[in-house]
């Protein structure tokens, strides 16, 4: 089988499962579809020669985060909190616009011959931990450190928002 056929199959699978995330009525199903989507994306990483990223994606997103999601959703009493669904007209308008955007993007891109990948530079070790570490702590040191600030902000923010507040209102 051609490698490009695998790619097409995987992409179709990814899109389908992503669509199912937002279309399924049951939130637990949604989460499970999401987990499946992550697996598909991880498979893409493999195709892109990013093995480490694949592993991390499965462990962190599909494993840790999604399990958390599941727990949270299970703790809610979902029967009472079913959001009122949008009217079919809104849905239609939304899909038409999104579809238009998609068509436009495809129309623009397909007019071009996309430059072929540079095969001669291929290195099977590119996606491995060692090489990734070299890049992260070398060339990409600044973004790497900055991302720590980003996470720190998110953490502080989560604590700030999650903490129960006693006393008077502050604002």
């Amino acid at each position, binding site marked *: 089988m051609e490698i490009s056929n695998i790619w097409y199959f995987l992409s179709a699978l990814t899109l389908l499962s992503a669509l199912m995330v937002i279309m399924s009525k049951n939130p637990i199903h949604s989460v499970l579809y999401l987990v499946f989507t992550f697996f598909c994306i991880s498979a893409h990483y493999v195709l892109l020669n990013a093995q480490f990223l694949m592993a991390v994606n499965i462990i962190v997103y599909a494993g840790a985060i999604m399990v958390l999601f599941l727990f949270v959703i299970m703790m809610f009493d979902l029967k009472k909190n079913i959001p009122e669904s949008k009217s079919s007209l809104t849905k239609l308008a939304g899909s038409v616009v999104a579809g238009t955007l998609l068509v436009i993007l495809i129309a623009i891109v397909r007019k*071009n011959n996309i430059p072929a990948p540079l095969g001669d530079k291929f290195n099977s070790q590119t996606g491995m931990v060692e090489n990734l570490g070299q890049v992260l702590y070398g060339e990409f*040191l600044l973004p790497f450190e*900055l991302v720590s600030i980003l996470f720190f902000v998110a953490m502080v923010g989560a604590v700030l928002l999650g903490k129960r507040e006693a006393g008077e*209102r502050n604002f």
Partner: protein
Amino acid sequence: MTAIIALSLFGISNLFLGFWFPRKTIQLVTLLFLVVSMALTVSDWNHELLWFGNMFRTTNTSINFSLIIQLAAFFVVAFSKAFGQDDEHTHPAEYYAIMLFSVVGAILMVSFDHMIVLFVGLEILSVAMYVLTGSDKRNLRSNEAAIKYFLMGSFTTGFLLFGITLVYGATRSFYISNIGTILTTTAPESMPSFLFIGVLLIIVGLLFKVSAAPFHFWTPDVYEGAPTIFTMFMSTIVKTASFAALFQLVSGIFGSLYTVWVLPVYFISMLTLVVGNISAVYQQSVKRMLAFSSISHAGYLILTVSSKQISTTSSILYYSLSYTLATVVAFAVLILVSEYQSARVEKPENFSSFEGLAKNNPGLALCFSISMLSLAGIPLTAGFWGKFFIFSDTFSRNIIYPVILAILMSAVGIYYYFKGIIAVYLKAGEIEKIEVPTLFKMALWACTLGTIILGIYPSLVKSVF
């Protein structure tokens, strides 16, 4: 450059200080931190350098933008009144720390030389803003605003990232300078067309942050829902930083693709001007009016992006500074008045709660009026020169109709800004003397004075920029 390291460390140490010190001290220490970081920023003056593997660039322009951002942060901290009176239950250190971190993000956005740095900076700023918007936990509107901001923000971040990816795909580089060289040396016909999609999507992502129409819908709701002090933060720092990033990208590396983005930018600026100004007319709430006013100011600024004159950079800097000073004062007075009125009237942020302010609080009334005048662009205030420079720059590029529209719209602006002045001075109302903390008062007068000095003698800073 050292400023971002220092500010990150300051942010962390702020969290620790929160354990031991009362809120007043933390506020003062945060101010001190900002002064130190400003000094560090200035120390890079005239050193045009690339740092950290060529990802971070300090130029005099970026230093000026960083200084305006830090100055705005300084005033926001000074106006913060240390977050409530309740000593036992409030934790101002976290707020201040997040503010310091977000300043780091903002500085990254004005001095990036690498797309990833831009993205990370934007995200630091945005995540911090999502948190701060929702920090009034017991207020439903604040929660709603935070979730709206978060949803729409992440949505546009997607567009921005997609744009960056496409540009990377076309040029095979994340480095701004590299992209610039590639774009100028390659003929537009031989570039893949998804490059143009990428450029447009990056522009759209940043236009969302500066709340340009039609990506402005989040602005009024978020500005209104967020605690006023953080609205002040958003409308000055987020706006200045995003605009600086937009300006550097569009007139810098995308400059050679002028014909691609210039028409959308025209139309967006015109639409922004119309939507911002016209919608502001009907608002009853001062806070919402200021939100629309910030949309309309984004419209004026976007107008300059396309002008590409030598003086444009300094005009934008001048405009940002004058806008920052005036906005900060407007929100500060709003904080005082709405706090005073919150126990007395149902909607403390409406124009009606300002009625009769001048009677017992002449100082506050004066500061508020001057800030309104400056926002409206009346001569002898900084706002006038800001508009003047922008219009003349744009005009000298022969961009006629958008300028005419902008001038008409600034006439509309006078209507709603003067509504505030009329409420303060001409309407009768009972407002007793409002107690203003010393630091607050000093910051208020400093900004007002700055507005007037810049209005009388614009070349004072224009020569620096």
